[in-house]
């Protein structure tokens, strides 16, 4: 069953691209983010590289845990799940 999932982004990303909090449908983190990127396509390249993997210094949390596989983003989500896209503490300059 497809749940309604909230997607939040680190405030630091707003310096680069418009990325408002939004509710989307999905059964996995991957589906939920795809649904978000369909509405806000400019955000995709800030979070995923061109091979579809989460960027090395971006951390994604769902249900309170960091996603298990940043390549597939296959972690399941349910109605009410909150996804947080944060920046890792590595990668800063």
């Amino acid at each position, binding site marked *: 069953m497809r749940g309604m999932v909230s997607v939040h982004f680190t405030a630091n990303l707003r310096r680069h691209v418009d990325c408002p909090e939004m509710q989307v449908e999905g059964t996995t983190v991957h589906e939920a983010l795809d649904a978000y990127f369909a509405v806000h396509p400019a955000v995709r390249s800030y979070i995923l*590289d061109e091979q579809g993997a989460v960027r090395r210094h971006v951390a994604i949390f769902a249900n309170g845990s960091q996603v298990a596989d940043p390549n597939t983003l296959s972690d399941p989500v349910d109605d009410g799940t909150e996804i947080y896209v944060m920046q890792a503490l590595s990668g800063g300059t």
Partner: protein
Amino acid sequence: MTNGSRLLVGTRKGLFTLDATSSGWAIDHVDFPGEPVTAVVHDAETGRTWAALGTGHFGVHIWRNDAGAWSEVGAPTYPPRPADANDVNPMTQEPNPWTTMLGWVLEQGARPDELWCGTIPGGLFRSRDGGDTWELQRSLWDHEGRPGWFGGGYDWPGIHSVTLDPRDPDTLAVGVSCGGAWVSTDDAATWTISTGMRADFLPPGEAQDPNRQDPHRLVRCAAEPDVLWNQHHNGCFRSTDGGRSWVEIEERAPSVFGFAAACHPADPNTAWFAPAVKDEMRVPVDGQVCVSRTTDGGATFDVLTNGLPGPDAFDLVYRHGLDVDGSGERLAMGSTTGSLWFSGNAGDRWETVNANLPPINLVRFI
């Protein structure tokens, strides 16, 4: 031709625009504060400027300034890595990433709206629409030599120099750390690797392998485009045949190591370099920042220190940290410790413009 009155300085924390005023150089404004700016190019005809941002966390992005307003345009992106791709880092055997990790150099093309971008991990990209879209040049990416490239200073190889022959829109040369220098005379359809460089980081017998050279920076003389200068990892080289072959300049005071190079736009015998001790000691020789200048094609060099700090300086000048304007008289140089210097007399005397900028990636007169 630039007239040396406006300067772009790309730093680890923003893009600074400085103007020559009656009381000296002054910062006019700062774009992208806090963001790594890794490459810039300016089109004097249209007034447009492009900047490559590293962003630290969120990938490489290109922004374009039209009539004073910045907007994000397309970024160089690699195609899906084929499942059977077998390109690996020769040092670590890790699979080469097919994702843009650094926009290392931006240059204008010969045609309207044409731009070139050299990247880490080694892809050369071209835009034909002012940066809106980019195309990986498969002619070089798929070349049988490319899997032999390896990182120099970074984990992955990269293209840091793209220099066009102003006489022929189809001729260009690129420099790869570490993958040698390559020349195309058919609009990037095919490539020939340069010969004549020597790598003392390779075992005896392999030092001349052209595909494993580490040219740090290639620059071309605008008036005599067959002449190029090459600050290499372990030496200084010059070409008189458009970069097809190189001759080593074995003696250069105070050292032959460095990253940056600048060539006089009208005089192929005059060039400037920013030496450091050597590869495992990347600081100024004897703590004295200097510029090495030749005016006789590399036969002799002057060591220019007037106005530059020492003997307790630790500045290093990166590949794109030295530039000369269209007159050949005005030079700018920026360091990793955030010092910016200017010379109005070909390097004879320098003034400190600012000693407290973020680490400087590049300087560029516009």
